[in-house]
């Protein structure tokens, strides 16, 4: 039994089938990169895993427990969906920090709301939990190198810094699997490095991650496993060496050649 098991994911929007049977597994602490051209279904797959889209078919299990069963997805209550979502973290391409909160409040908002909701806590326990969250937020912020920006607002910091805050914010909820949706695509080239470095540090921290990316060098560097998607299916899957150095399918060969040509 693998830590993450994704089986038979299908998804279509109207007549367009975007995902046509996606199967893969991932062990705890492994990093998976998903590459492929635009429209191949990478982002949709990530959104299905995070329950932002409802898959038409398929199951996703974490640690042997079925998190998503497409057949039953309609019957999930809001509360169930929320709890399932917390198993996964997602870092967006556009960061999506909350502009009206400063950096530290962006980190603590959601966890503090969860404490507030938990009516069974005594006043002391609540206070203690809030303190723990504040402390944790400070530590996470330090780990992405932004302690000095705790009181800044998102509009006052650079895109790279915003994305690092977004990563720390996602980590606050202690997800089993952290997903990245093209985390550097919205950044100026000179800012991608700082974000990629943070992601790389997370890998050494033994985090299970799925990264949708266009940064081929980075994918090769950081991944234990690489998936190449094309037209809604997994065209090729393997170690970075297998995928990047010995591509088998014509589509992957063409794709890699094109990404090289960029320069």
């Amino acid at each position: 039994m693998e830590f993450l098991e994704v089986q038979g994911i299908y998804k279509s929007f109207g007549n367009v089938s975007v995902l046509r049977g996606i199967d893969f597994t991932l062990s705890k602490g492994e990093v998976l990169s998903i590459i492929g051209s635009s429209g191949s279904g990478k982002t949709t797959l990530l959104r299905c895993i995070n329950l932002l889209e409802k898959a038409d078919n398929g199951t996703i299990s974490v640690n042997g427990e079925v998190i998503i069963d497409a057949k039953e997805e309609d019957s999930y209550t809001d509360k169930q969906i929320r709890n399932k979502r917390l198993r996964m973290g997602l870092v967006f391409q556009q960061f999506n920090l909350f502009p009206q909160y400063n950096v530290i409040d962006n980190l603590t908002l959601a966890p503090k709301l969860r404490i507030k909701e938990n009516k069974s806590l005594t006043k002391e326990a609540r206070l203690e939990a809030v303190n723990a969250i504040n402390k944790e937020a400070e530590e996470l912020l330090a780990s992405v190198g932004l302690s000095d920006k705790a009181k800044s607002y998102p509009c006052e910091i650079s895109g790279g810094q915003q994305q690092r805050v977004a990563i720390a914010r996602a980590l606050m909820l202690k997800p089993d699997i952290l997903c990245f949706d093209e985390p550097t695509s919205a950044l100026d080239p000179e800012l991608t490095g700082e974000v990629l470095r943070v992601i790389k540090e997370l890998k050494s921290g033994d985090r299970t991650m799925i990264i949708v990316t266009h940064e081929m060098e980075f994918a090769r560097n950081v991944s234990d496993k690489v998936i190449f998607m094309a037209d809604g299916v997994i065209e090729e899957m393997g170690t970075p060496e297998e995928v990047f150095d010995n591509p088998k399918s014509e589509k992957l060969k063409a794709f890699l050649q094109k990404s090289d040509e960029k320069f």
Partner: protein
Amino acid sequence: MFWQVTLKFLEGFGATCSVFAFTLIFALPLGLIISFGTMSGFKPLKAVMKTIVWIVRGVPLMLQLFIVYYGPSLLFKIPIGDKFVATIIAFSINYACYFSEIFRAGIEAIPRGQIEAGQVLGMTRFQIFTRVTLMQVVKRIVPPMGNEIITLVKDTALANTIVVAEIIYHAKTISNTIAEIWPLFYTAVFYLIFVGVLTLLFGWLEKKLSYYKV
């Protein structure tokens, strides 16, 4: 004479201010509720709400004032009695419909990603609305709301048509009594001061909210 008129106007200005204040108190939350209706995914509700907004925005406010004031007694023989209450009801409904469109524009302008960020962080829909969306909506709608609220200041003058003793009503009465027109023009000073204060207030609010960008 001038001071007597001024005193009378101050009295009328009090009524103007209460029509203004009560309308805002009721129309703002009602407008938010109507905007939820017009954005509803439930088609019949959406259609009904859109129709209501169309009718209320399509009929002159003065006519609506008459309908609220005279309608109940003509239709059901239950007189509404209080002119002031009738004014507040008519104004609140009318302004709520205008506000609802401003709210709708503000809410629909929030990037989908903001809501999704709340979702993946496990927040409830209510939490996402109150903690994430609402403040961003407020920032976006300050200028159009300022416009609408300033219009309201001057629309309160319509209440004189059902004999609510606001400032225009007093001005007309005095003008008729002394057979001179200047008191009517003099009311403009009161409106200008009121709107001037509101303009400063909205300017201050905009500045206060300028610490973040949406």
